[in-house]
């Protein structure tokens, strides 16, 4: 089923026309109502009337996370604070967090966007959705919640944690759709296996996962363990939250809701716009937001975009799986390394659990990477030579993926902290800042 056929199946021409009208309106709105934008555009000598085509968006400067931090907390709002009925905030790992504000219409639209995504995964009013995303300032919990209400499904707002209870509820309530972050999903699967839960006897029909970088191997592992197809949900607090793009049943890219967000792919270094199919940083513009419209926001997420028709019947643009974040990237010995590459290597080896931690140090002027990997019963051998071989094999697989030699340390099972939100994969001890 398609939730909003009129929009999702509109022709490319219709989508572009609609986007241009909305873009012009949005630029005028921020110029008139957000001091940050009027000041900046005046500086650049660009005015709303200069936006005559979609391509003209490229004349506008980018908005970065730092810009939002400087406007902390409410400086980016385009409406009187009285009209803002809800705020969310992203985890501030560096510096001040970022605040996102929503009017009542914005919340309504957020529900619409998620409703489209849930429908893509095959959800409808028959379903019972167990939402393990945290309810709070994190957008994951409430975003999925509003969308679930919109399609009329039954939502279990369990939030993250109480992991044994999660499994009990999955069985007792007959959960048909699970929503989780990949790392929390893997943790739940481990726990369920410990408790001898037979996934064949559960009612699960789909999984929606998001909020973390993932790999195809990880998806396959989740699907195998939960015995249900898993679909990626992409989003970010600044623009709205989860639902910006979601995978359909074809699982070949995530459909971006183009009547709400205008996507561009740019070269992170030069800022130049790249063509369809070229990998680069995703830049998004809110096309329909009252509370806090953002223009050309640099997501730092690395992906490619495709405008080709999808087998599912939708014509909206699709982005590829996010392969890395330009700021999660660690530069080691001058080489760009993404945690996802290391994960990919680990998942290629039998008997290895994708629980790992990357520790970067600089003991004597040179960078060194240590990857801690949990040993398992199946991997352990009484033979020292064999254990050293396994360690070397892991090191070789990682070398093939990233082109650098790392030191692999086998550690005790369950000794790497499990996340109940976003996993902390990299510990950089180099003090480069």
């Amino acid at each position, binding site marked *: 089923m398609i939730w909003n056929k009129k929009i999702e199946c509109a022709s490319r021409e219709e989508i572009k026309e609609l986007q241009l009208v909305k873009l012009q309106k949005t630029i005028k709105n921020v110029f008139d109502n957000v001091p940050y934008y009027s000041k900046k555009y005046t500086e650049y000598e660009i005015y709303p009337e200069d936006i005559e085509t979609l391509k003209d968006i490229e004349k506008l400067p980018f908005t970065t996370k730092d810009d939002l931090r400087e406007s902390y907390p409410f400086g980016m709002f385009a409406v009187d604070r009285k009209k803002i009925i809800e705020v969310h905030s992203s985890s501030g790992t560096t510096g001040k967090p970022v605040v996102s504000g929503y009017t009542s219409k914005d919340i309504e639209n957020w529900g619409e966007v998620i409703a489209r995504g849930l429908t893509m995964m095959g959800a409808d009013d028959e379903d019972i959705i167990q939402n393990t995303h945290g309810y709070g300032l994190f957008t994951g919990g409430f975003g999925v919640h509003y969308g679930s209400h919109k399609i009329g499904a039954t939502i279990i707002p369990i939030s993250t944690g109480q992991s044994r209870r999660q499994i009990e509820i999955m069985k007792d309530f007959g959960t048909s759709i699970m929503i989780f972050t990949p790392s929390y999903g893997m943790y739940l699967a481990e726990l369920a296996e410990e408790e001898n839960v037979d996934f064949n006897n559960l009612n699960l029909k789909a999984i929606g996962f998001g909020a973390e970088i993932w790999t195809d191997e990880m998806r396959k592992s989740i699907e195998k363990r939960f015995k249900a197809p898993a679909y990626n949900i992409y989003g970010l607090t600044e623009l709205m939250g989860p639902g910006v793009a979601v995978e359909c049943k074809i699982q070949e890219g995530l459909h971006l809701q183009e009547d709400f967000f205008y996507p561009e792919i740019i070269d992170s270094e030069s800022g130049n716009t790249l063509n369809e199919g070229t990998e680069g940083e995703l830049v998004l513009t809110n096309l329909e937001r009252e509370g806090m419209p953002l223009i050309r926001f640099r997501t730092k997420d690395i992906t490619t975009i495709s405008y080709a028709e999808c087998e599912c019947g939708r014509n909206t643009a699709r982005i590829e799986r996010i392969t890395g974040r330009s700021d999660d990237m660690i530069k080691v010995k001058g080489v760009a390394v993404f945690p996802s590459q290391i994960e990919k290597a680990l998942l290629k080896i039998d008997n290895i659990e994708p629980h790992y931690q990357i520790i970067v140090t600089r003991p004597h002027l040179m960078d060194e990477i240590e990857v801690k990997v949990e*040993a398992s019963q199946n991997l352990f051998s009484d033979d020292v030579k064999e254990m050293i071989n396994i360690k070397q094999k892991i090191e070789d697989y990682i070398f093939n993926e990233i082109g650098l030699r790392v030191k692999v340390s086998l550690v005790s099972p369950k000794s790497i902290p499990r996340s109940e939100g976003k996993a902390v994969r990299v510990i950089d001890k180099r003090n480069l800042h």
Partner: protein
Amino acid sequence: MKINQLSIFLENQKGRLWEALNTIATGKINIRALSLADTSEFGILRIVVNDPEKGKKLLEEKQFIVKITPIVGVELSDTPGGLSSVLKILTDNNINLEYLYAFTHEKTEKAILLLQAKDLDLLIKILKKHEIAIVPPEEVYNL
């Protein structure tokens, strides 16, 4: 014929060996013999205890990775040359040992040698052929 040894994976971290041995001790399990193989990265603790199954269970409850590995025990007279005579036989018969360790039996004053080889059955066959006394597992567990 084969003794069930416990092989325990030890992460190279302060206190791990103590934790493993303490788990065994608090479970009232007696260690008959012990050997530690270590590399710069990790260690393998090998122990023969009076109750291998229980020992494994207790260690696994504490998140240790444990394997039960069969090995062979032979009896030596506790006199000079006892060990080398056995090793000579094994060398002559092309048996490569993976590892060995030994302990002395207080009551009988005999030494017991614990052996591991890739082909354990072949090892047993050779030992028997040369009339070397193989120690029954029960005897080791119940020392």
